[in-house]
């Protein structure tokens, strides 16, 4: 009995010290206790695929491919009624007019919802550099992104909406492109929000409708 108890104690202490407790940090990959069908012979997103030289399962876009739509709107894209939006309204996708110049008018209707969407996307993608109000004083300024300009000078106010759209899509100078992260609709929404920021930072008392002036103490 005493021998058994000694062995038991030893085994328990040894197991606890080898296995540790729940939640301990570990560098080694989790063990699958019953690896039934956990790992199947199928290719998953962002997975590895030995067939290709770079072993990437997600293939980069073939040059010259024309984007018909996104996976997320797959239902519309493969519907019989689908109209190829790019043919209907090329400016919506390229920001250019027929002669290849940046458009000066929005190619879609600017609604309150669109500006709201723009604010959401601006906060995610532009605010780290351009700042909350577009003054170029985003958080990254003090870490070395000194090139970020403000939107609130005459030069930037004179930019057409097509110019801003192209800056977002293809980047400009030291700013990298955001075309892969935002679909055309969202890019126009961001442009609308940039315009709203430009208005808001260059406004006078006269721009405030009379009925709201009292509320603001003006």
């Amino acid at each position, binding site marked *: *009995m005493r021998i*058994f108890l000694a062995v*038991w104690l030893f*085994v*328990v202490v040894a*197991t606890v010290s080898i*296995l540790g*407790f*729940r*939640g*301990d*940090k*570990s*560098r*080694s*990959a*989790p*063990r*699958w*206790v019953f690896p*039934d*069908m*956990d*790992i*199947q012979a*199928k290719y*998953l*997103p*962002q997975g590895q695929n030995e067939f290709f030289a*770079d072993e*990437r399962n997600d293939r*980069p876009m073939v040059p010259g491919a024309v984007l018909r739509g*996104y*996976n*997320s709107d797959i239902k519309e894209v493969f519907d019989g009624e689908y109209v190829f939006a790019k043919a209907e309204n090329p400016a919506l996708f390229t920001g250019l007019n027929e002669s290849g110049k940046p458009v000066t008018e929005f190619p879609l209707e600017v609604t309150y919802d669109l500006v709201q969407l723009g604010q959401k996307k601006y*906060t*995610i*993608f532009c*605010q*780290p*550099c351009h700042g909350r109000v577009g003054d170029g004083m985003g*958080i*990254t300024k003090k*870490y*070395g*992104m*000194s*090139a970020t300009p403000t939107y609130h000078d005459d030069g930037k106010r004179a930019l057409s909406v097509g110019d801003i759209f192209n800056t977002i899509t293809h980047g400009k100078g*030291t700013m*990298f492109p955001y075309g892969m*992260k935002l679909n055309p609709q969202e890019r126009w929404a961001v442009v609308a929000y940039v315009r709203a920021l430009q208005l808001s930072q260059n406004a006078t008392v006269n721009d405030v409708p009379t009925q709201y002036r009292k509320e603001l103490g003006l």
Partner: protein
Amino acid sequence: MANIFPKWSNTAPIKILICLALTVGTVVAGVTYWATPKYLRVGYQPIQPVAFEHSLHVDQLGMDCLYCHTFVDRSEHSNVPAASTCMNCHSMVKSDSPKLAPIRNSYESGEPVPWVKIHRTPDYVYFNHSVHINRGVSCVHCHGQVNEMEEVYHAKPLSMAFCLECHRNPENFIRPIDEVTNLNFRYDSREEQIEQGTKFVHDWKVNPPQSCSGCHR
């Protein structure tokens, strides 16, 4: 005639019983404690090719998860960002840091950065990020406080019981959609969470699957 059974045999059965009970009890306790995802997965923290810190980029710089994991709200899987996303800033910020050499190489050569995958459900489970994100389920429920992690680790078991705990009572978890990527958001009290959650469940017609075919197809 001498005794057939020596004296010690009086206590032998009880001793054998104690030994058996101890052995079986310990094995059962050990298996329930160790052979579950709560032990096997939680805490997995592989060494990544680049010492990328979520705590710095998210908490200190205030970046949103969607800046990098851009397609998590419209795709079934969440993308890990390409090197060009890092170069948006690191072409100018710390542009010669040796820690970032793999990112620069990847950006120039087009070879992907070999990030080590941490969270992985078995291949017979069909998980979808976008349905959760668009119904107010925050990253924090399934990934823990990533915004405070210097190195990401597996914080939640992601076992079937874990998924079902929420699928049975989503009102205990869901929050406004704007706050999904704000991992520090909490309602002040549990009652408020349940009250607001019940409202969202009703308004958005939230109905998470509990039948097997919802997750196993």
